[in-house]
């Protein structure tokens, strides 16, 4: 019996009348429609769409404003912050209840599983859909924005772009940079029982964006 790979590829080729190693026919062009928006328009649009999904957004003038606002948001909760240098620049690592600097998976996992909030930055944000884009890296682990019941993203305003089309224009091959690119659009939700909306089923039920305008 031939192996499954040879067999399946052979059947596909027989079905299509193609030969092994035959190049593909000319493909239809890529269809991306980007928008031209000013920084202010992008921020406004992002905030509007983010809040439509029950996220809470705040615009801050300077990095120095992040610490006090975050303390208020955390309201005594313990938190895990990602290793993003931007968070350090914003003074987050100085908040007492915030743990950071994890480099070992199991330690990070345990900390995130018991933390009240996860704090991250993001690589991009999409104005048109209120989406956060996070590529996994030594600075941004996957679980910080996933395990705790609250997610706070600190976003430099300059990272807000128009839409998904623009993201794939900027990052045509995400796999060359990271094993994981996740787009987060609002809090975790389900409507599986009687189509009633419930937030926070497996991921965070609360999501906050602190948009920092300094440097944009």
């Amino acid at each position: 019996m031939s192996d499954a790979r040879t067999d399946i590829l052979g059947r596909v080729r027989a079905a299509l009348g193609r030969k092994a190693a035959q190049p593909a026919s000319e493909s239809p062009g890529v269809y991306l429609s980007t928008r031209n928006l000013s920084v202010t328009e992008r921020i406004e649009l992002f905030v509007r769409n983010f809040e439509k999904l029950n996220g809470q957004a705040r615009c801050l003038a300077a990095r120095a404003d992040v610490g006090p606002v975050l303390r208020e948001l955390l309201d005594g909760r313990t938190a895990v912050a990602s290793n993003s240098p931007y968070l350090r620049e914003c003074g987050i690592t100085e908040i007492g209840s915030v743990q950071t600097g994890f480099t070992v998976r199991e330690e990070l996992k345990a900390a995130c599983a018991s933390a009240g909030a996860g704090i991250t930055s993001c690589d991009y944000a999409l104005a048109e859909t209120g989406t956060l884009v996070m590529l996994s890296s030594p600075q941004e682990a996957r679980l910080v924005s996933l395990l705790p019941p609250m997610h706070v993203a600190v976003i430099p305003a300059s990272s807000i772009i128009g839409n998904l089309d623009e993201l794939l224009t900027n990052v045509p091959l995400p796999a060359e940079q990271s094993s994981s690119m996740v787009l987060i659009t609002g809090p975790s939700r389900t409507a599986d029982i009687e189509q009633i909306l419930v937030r926070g089923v497996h991921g965070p039920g609360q999501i906050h964006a602190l948009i920092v305008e300094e440097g944009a």
Partner: protein
Amino acid sequence: MTSAPIKIKETIADPRLQQAIYTATGRLMSHRAQAIQPALMPEYQELRTRAHEIKRHTIENLDYYLELLESKVTAHGGKVIFCRDAAEVADFVLGLAKERGAKLIVKSKSMTTEEIGLNERVERHQLEAVETDLGEYILQLAHQRPYHIVAPALHMTRYEVADIFTEKLGVKNEVVIENQTKIARSVLREKFLAADIGITGANFLVADSGAVLVVENEGNARLSSSAPKIHIAIAGIEKLIPRAQDLPLFLKLLGRSATGQAMTVYTSFLSGPRRSDEIDGPDEFYVVLLDNGRTKLLANADKRESLYCIRCGACLNHCPVYRKIGGHSYPWIYSGPIGKIITPQFHGVMQDPWLPFASSLCGACAEVCPVKIDIPKLLLQLRSEVVEAKTRGGTAGEERRGFRLFAWLMQRPKLFQFAGRMAARFGPRPAGGKWISKVPGLFNIEPVRNWLSQRDLPPPAPKSFHQLWKERKK
């Protein structure tokens, strides 16, 4: 014939279920309609056309894109496993689990693994496989299959869920949906943290990136693919798209068509195990590419477009038949119009010969399909295949003779009118002007019996239209 027709009668006779199906599909329909309205999405029709073209191109060059995907997955440290059928997938999962000493698998919602009955197959070998999508988790506890491609537990009420949780989890009877969700969250959270293997499906396989793309709202697919040390993605070979840059097009269509969402809450683009410097993510990454009959479908150039489907479920929501008979009346896990065209192609048309006929051919499915699959055309082709097979097998003889007689009569107006007058005079005429529901003795043959088994016939009018017309003209 399968037991489906019995299920159809039960479903239609259950007002609670009828209400549930109508409300849920109605809501999904209106969400979609809002999301694609021209003011918000003027390019909607253009996107459908382009999506159809890209799917056609990919399917017509499928071997090329399969090999491209494989080379990219491998380059990023992952592995592609080709599987001919359900048994080969189970063998792979079981073999890997055994080698790694794995005991617990967390699964996120995947129609493909439902198709191959993966849970039952692995559980026979002392491996625990837990569904983690809330709807799928409830169904797994209740031992039921999904009712809908997108909303698997659409048919259940909170009270049924409460009973299932009490019976299976030993919790007190809880009928508040938010609290039910909390119960599931806490039970499943433990599973996520303890799991050795995470299994997901794939909404798309991105060839130029060697990536698996998964959309979801709950976060269970993210957890399944990020918390355990091994991630296995299982997908049919038709799920390919050529480029990462094709994603905006398909994602705009998928979310809107399925639930009316411009973006689902989480969209994960996963391409291999964690890179050496990444803190978390799986150490091992496998993409299982499943045939299970798809190459047979591919071999038929006329019906190949059934493979363009992106499983949004819009055709189910808009189908007057699905909305009446519900998801469990179909013979396979793929229900609704798309199920009606792919089931006969996977199982053979004569397995459930009634299936392509259970349609009004209203065309709503084709109108809402985001990749423009011509479902009514495919249904007609499948109908003709059923009739051909029946003719060959000699079972269509009576029907054929009946239609021949009818055609012969239609070509002889005088005789036709005479036959009409005779029917009016001597035909059955139930008392009290009721309709005919029993087969008149003379016509007790299978096609007539079948027809009358679901319908009543008005008694023949005392005067034909022809006669009335003549009298009026006088």
